[in-house]
C-alpha cells in the first residue's frame, strides 16, 4: 500500500470546478467499517474511474454519493455547496443518475415500466395527466437498440430478461436521465463484447457533452480505454488518484489487486486480466 510515485493527489486533467466533491467519507454498518475516510471528486466532462479489489468499498462509496446511504462521517459538496441527499430521489433531481451494481430493477415489472420508474413521461392536462405509455415504449425500445439489444417487446417482464439484457436496461435508463453526473457501478460485467463496446462508446459520448462520469470496473482495459482519472480504493481507504497517461496497465492492475500477488496461469493471459 505504498504511495506509488506515479500517483499524485489533487492534480486533475482540467481546471473546471468539480460537480461533486466528497471529503473524508466514512461509512460503518453496525460493527463493520466499510469506508474509513475516502475523498473523491468528479468534474464536468471527465470520466473518473473508481477501481479496487472486491469488497474495497466502491459500491458503498457511490451509494453515499447517490443518496442511498447516509455517510457516518464526512462531507459532500454539490456544485460547491454542502449538501446531503436524503433519498436517491433528491440526488436524481439534482442530476445524478446511477447504475447500481444490483441494477435496482423490479423483476415483475415490464421493461418500459422499469425504464421510466420514478420519472414517467406524461401527457394530458391536470386530472387527465397520464402515463404516456406509447411514447415510453418507443423511447425505451430505441434506447435499448442504441446499446445493441433488440428487445422482443417493451412489455416483457424484466425478471425474464437475460443477465446482459437486464444490465443494458439499467444502463440505458441512467444514460437517458443522466443530467450532470452519471455513475456506473460495474456496468459492463454481464455484457457481451458488442454491448460492452457500445457502453464504452456511450461513456465517451456523454463525457464529451460535459457530463461527469464515475465508472467502476474490474477490467483494467476498459478503465484505461475511457478513464481520465483513476482512483484506487483498498480496504475502505483510497490509495490515491492518477491521471491518464501517467500509469501503465500493469501498475494499475497491481494496485487494484491491493498489492497482493496474483496466481500465474500457464495459459496466455498476457499481462492484464
Amino acid at each position, binding site marked *: 500500500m505504498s504511495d506509488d510515485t506515479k500517483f499524485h493527489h489533487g492534480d486533475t486533467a482540467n481546471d473546471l470546478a468539480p460537480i461533486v466533491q466528497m471529503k473524508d467519507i466514512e461509512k460503518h454498518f453496525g460493527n463493520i467499517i466499510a469506508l474509513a475516510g475516502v475523498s473523491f471528486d468528479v468534474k464536468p466532462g471527465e470520466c473518473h474511474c473508481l477501481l479496487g479489489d472486491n469488497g474495497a468499498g466502491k459500491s458503498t462509496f457511490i451509494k453515499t454519493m447517490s443518496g442511498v446511504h447516509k455517510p457516518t462521517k464526512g462531507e459532500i459538496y454539490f456544485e460547491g455547496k454542502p449538501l446531503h441527499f436524503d433519498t436517491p430521489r433528491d440526488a436524481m433531481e439534482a442530476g445524478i443518475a446511477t447504475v447500481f451494481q444490483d441494477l435496482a430493477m423490479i423483476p*415483475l415489472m415490464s421493461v418500459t415500466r422499469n425504464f421510466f*420508474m*420514478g420519472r414517467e413521461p406524461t401527457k394530458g392536462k391536470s386530472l387527465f395527466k397520464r*402515463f404516456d405509455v406509447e411514447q415510453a415504449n418507443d423511447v425505451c*425500445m430505441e434506447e435499448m437498440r442504441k446499446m445493441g439489444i*433488440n428487445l422482443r417487446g417493451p412489455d416483457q417482464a424484466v425478471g425474464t430478461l437475460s443477465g446482459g439484457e437486464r444490465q443494458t436496461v439499467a444502463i440505458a435508463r441512467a444514460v437517458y436521465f443522466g443530467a450532470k453526473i452519471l455513475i456506473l457501478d460495474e456496468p459492463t460485467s454481464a455484457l457481451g463484447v458488442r454491448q460492452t463496446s457500445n457502453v464504452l462508446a456511450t461513456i465517451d459520448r456523454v463525457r464529451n457533452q460535459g457530463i461527469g462520469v464515475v465508472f467502476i470496473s474490474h477490467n483494467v482495459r476498459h478503465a484505461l480505454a475511457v478513464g481520465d482519472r483513476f482512483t484506487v480504493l483498498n480496504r475502505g481507504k483510497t490509495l490515491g488518484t492518477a491521471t491518464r497517461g501517467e500509469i501503465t496497465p500493469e501498475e494499475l492492475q497491481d494496485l487494484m489487486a491491493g498489492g497482493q500477488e496474483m496466481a500465474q496461469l500457464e495459459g496466455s493471459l498476457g499481462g492484464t486480466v
Partner: protein
Amino acid sequence: MSESAPVTADERVKSEPFLTKLMKRPELGAMAGVVLVFIFFAITADSSMFTLAGVMNFMTPAAQLGILAIGAALLMIGGEFDLSIGSMVAFSGLFFGVCVVTWQLPLIVAIPMTFVFAAMVGGINGNIVIRSGLPSFIVTLAFLFILRGLSLVGLKMATGGSTQLRGVRDVVENDWLAPFFSGEAFGGLFAWMAEVGIIDTFKNGAPKVPGIPVEILWFIVMALAATYVLLRTPAGNWIFASGGDKTAASNSGVPVNRVKVSLFMLTACCAALVAIITVMDAGSTDARRGFQKEFEAIIAAVIGGCLLTGGYGSAIGAFFGSIIFGMVVIGLTYTDFDQDWFQVFLGGMLLIAVLFNNAIRKRVTGER
C-alpha cells in the same frame, strides 16, 4: 456509437393468439372463476338468483366488499397490508353516526369530516409502519384491536351504554346528499320499467328492484378509477414499484414512503365509504360492523390475483374476486344445501374457482 439497428421482426417470437394475450393480464385471470361460479349456480340454484332482483341482491354485498377489496388490493400491490379496515368500518361508522345523530351535522359536513378522519387514522397507521420499519401486518393488527375497542367505547359513550347507535335514517332522510350514499339510483327509470312491464313486480305492483343500489355504482366507478390509476398514471407505476422491491424502487427515485402512506390513507377512506353507505342504509351502527371484513377484502384481492408479497395484481382482479366471493356467499342460500354444509361449500367453491382460474390461465398461456 453504433447506429441503431433496423427494427426487424424477431424470429424467436411465436405468434400469440389474442385469447392468450388477454389471459396474461392479471385483471382477466379472475374472470374464469366468475364464469365457473356462474355456471355452477345457474345449474344448482333457484332460478330467482339470476333475475334482476337476484343479481342486485348478490351484487350489493359484493360491492360493499369490493370497495374495501379494491383499496386492499392497491395497498397489497404497494407491498403492505391493512388489517384494520374491518375495524375502521365500525369506527368511521361510529364517527359518522355521531356526526349526524349526536351533533346533527348535515351530510355535506359529516361526510367530508368522516373521510378526513379516516384518512388521518390511515395516515397514522402508515407513518408508524414507515418510521418503525415494522411489518404493516403487526402495526395494523394493533389498530384492528384499538379501533374495534374504541368503537365499543365510543358507542357506549354516544348512546349511554348501548352497543348500537340508532336513528341515522331519520336524520339523513331528507338531506340532498343522501341519494349519493344510500338507497337505489335510477329509481324513476326502474319504476317506469316496472310499469311498462320490462322488469318484474311484486304482487302489490311495486317493482321488485327499485333501482341500482348506490354501492354497486361506487364499486364500478372505483374499480375503473383504480385500474386507470394503476395502468395509466405515474402513481400506478410507483405503486407497483414500491411493492415489487422497496429498495430498488427507492434507488430508482420512487418516493416509496409517500406512496405507501397515501395508500394507507386511501384504504382507510374506502373503509369510511363503506361505513357511510352501510350506516345510512341500515340506519344504525353497532360495535360488530365490518367484523372480519379485512380478511374478506384480502381474500377477494388474492382471488383476483394479487400477490401477498406485493408488486403484482390488479384492481379489476379484486373486482372479480369480490363478485366471486359475494356470489358464492349469497348464492349458496339460493340452493338447497343444508346450512350446516355452508362453510364446506364456501371453502370448496373458493378453492375450485381459484384452481380453475389458474388451470385455465396456465393452459392458455402455455406456462409450465
